């Protein structure tokens, strides 16, 4: 260890903000007369990324603890479908609880297998992803389930409070609570310790298995909430919800400065990473690029961003 290391690490942490600013400035310059800077469009970006941001917060805990969750995308769909189905007969509050419980149950199964059967989370969640995706298809019969409960749609979708859209409030709430839990509590420190060096964590008295279980339950809870946000926004639940979020959210979290192999994580970084992904999709569409070019450019920018943020600060 040398004294220059923290400085470099700190600089590394700022890269995502610089990247975000750079891309924002680029689109602002290119698209100043094509709607990019309109308040509506900028709000759209935040609304569109709200479920991904919620998922990203959960994933920061998982990655920081040295684990991974590949099943959260499928859990989003299952939670949304369960919530929508339960809501039809039991009312929306019960539906909300059922959706959240579904996400947490998925996390509990993942976590129990990872923590107590000592199987790698990569393989466990890869397998449960298939099981959950299949269950979502089976339960819904490959159909969309409409969501009609007005209060639910207002709270989790299109409503607003004091002029602030509810999806923005959810994003802020989850990010703030997640950040405080991660940075300011003993629990957050334990998560990082387990991810950094599980053996040392165990020796120092941290219940490593319980931490591993808890991060996956947390990720499941976030998936449940994201499922509710999707169901509220689309006023329907469908088995494909969340599927395409897997790669976007992992990329957002890594770009934001969380280490893929544990011991380092940042929730504000994940928020900015998620917004960056949303802004990229938005700006590339507004530029009028063909779909193939949108994909190629987005992929290249993510590659560059990941390459920059994944470089180890002390090597």
């Amino acid at each position: 260890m040398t004294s220059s290391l923290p400085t470099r690490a700190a600089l590394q942490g700022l890269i995502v903000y610089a990247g975000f600013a750079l891309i924002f400035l680029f689109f602002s310059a290119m698209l100043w007369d094509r709607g990019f800077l309109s308040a509506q469009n900028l709000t759209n970006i935040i609304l569109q990324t709200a479920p991904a941001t919620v998922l990203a917060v959960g994933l920061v805990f998982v990655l920081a603890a040295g684990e991974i969750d590949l099943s959260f995308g499928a859990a989003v769909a299952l939670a949304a479908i369960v919530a929508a189905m339960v809501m039809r007969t039991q009312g929306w509050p019960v539906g909300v609880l059922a959706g959240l419980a579904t996400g947490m149950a998925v996390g509990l199964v993942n976590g129990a297998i990872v923590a107590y059967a000592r199987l790698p989370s990569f393989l466990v969640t890869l397998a449960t992803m298939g099981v959950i995706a299949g269950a979502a298809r089976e339960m819904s019969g490959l159909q969309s389930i409409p969501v009609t409960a007005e209060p639910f749609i207002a709270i989790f979708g299109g409503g607003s409070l004091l002029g602030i859209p509810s999806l923005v409030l959810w994003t802020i709430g989850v990010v703030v609570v997640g950040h405080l839990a991660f940075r300011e509590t003993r629990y957050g420190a334990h998560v990082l310790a387990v991810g950094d060096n599980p053996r040392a964590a165990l020796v120092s008295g941290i219940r490593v298995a319980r931490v591993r279980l808890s991060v996956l339950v947390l990720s499941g809870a976030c998936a449940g909430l994201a499922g509710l946000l999707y169901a509220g926004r689309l006023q329907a639940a469908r088995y494909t919800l969340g599927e395409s979020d897997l790669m976007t959210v992992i990329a957002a979290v890594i770009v934001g400065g969380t280490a893929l192999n544990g011991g380092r994580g940042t929730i504000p970084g994940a928020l900015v990473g998620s917004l960056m992904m949303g802004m990229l999709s938005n700006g590339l569409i507004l530029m009028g690029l063909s779909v193939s070019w949108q994909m190629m450019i987005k992929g290249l920018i993510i590659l560059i961003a990941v390459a920059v943020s994944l470089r180890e600060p002390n090597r």
Partner: protein
Amino acid sequence: MTRPLLSALLLSLSLGTAALAQDAAPVTTGPNGEPAAPADKLVLSDADIAKLKAGGYTAAFSWHELYDWSSAVSRGARDEFDRLGIKVVAETNASFDAARQTADVETILALKPSVLITLPVDSAAGVATYGKVSAAGTKLVFIDNPAEGMTVGKDYVATVTSDRAIIGARTAEAMAAALHEKGKVGYIFHDANFPVTNQRDQAFLWNLKTRFPGIEVVAKAGMADPARIEDIANAMLTQNPEINGIYVPWTEPALGVLSVLRQMGRQDVRIVSIDLNEPAALDMAKGGSVSALIADDAYGIGTAAARAAALSLLDQKVDPLLVVGAGIVSKDNLVDGWRASLHADPPQSVLDALK
């Protein structure tokens, strides 16, 4: 990915192919019983075109997924917009993700296009996705299925699709030709509640039974998941070895049936299916098991959608449901049939195999 599946993903337009497999012939109608109008009825005069060119109009596309068929629809619309002086300002691909399509449409609206042409991923999410479009003053035209909860004439201009009754009729005719009007057929249908494929399947069955008495349907099997098609075809051919023709609801599973026939060495069984794709066309070009593929006028759907949008910009009346026809593509007319449907040349592999 295939078009029937995705069309099927959209569910809501109950284009009623009435009285299926019963007495009355299948007829294509709109969700509220609107009659289907032929898309080639849409005509723009020189004066109309001059007005459009002077109007400085713009257009955008929001696709459910892009592949052979939807790219041809897109090309048809682009070429027509080009002719009419309407500039295409954005195109998006939702990759079957309803949430992404909602985001795509919101993003597109920031550009305030005059026209939006779209194929909805999920009709049930219709109002959430498209509710703001007409309020923004953008003319909306649906391909294949309108979104639920939207009113034609108020929220959107029209729906453009292929005539499923015609597709069913052509498929039956192709099967009859392949078997010389005499044989035993295995019928594989899409076993899920997807109106688009359901109606085509049933129209095929009705036409076959009613018009070709020499052909007997000896086995019926439902397919819920295209990935399981090989198991289904294996069982069907093992239990009914007398089968010499198989109907498959679209080309992706037809490739699975093809592979089963190859494994079994059954060169005597003919396949008829719907939509063009390269491997199936290649087998057909080589004189393999695929006898015919039914192809709708995908490019024409795009042209019609662009015209419908343009007419509505000029405040002219447009029929609520516009349909294009479909034709039989077999080895003899493969190149022409491919061009007619997709307005592109067949892939080089297919051209080489035809030599």
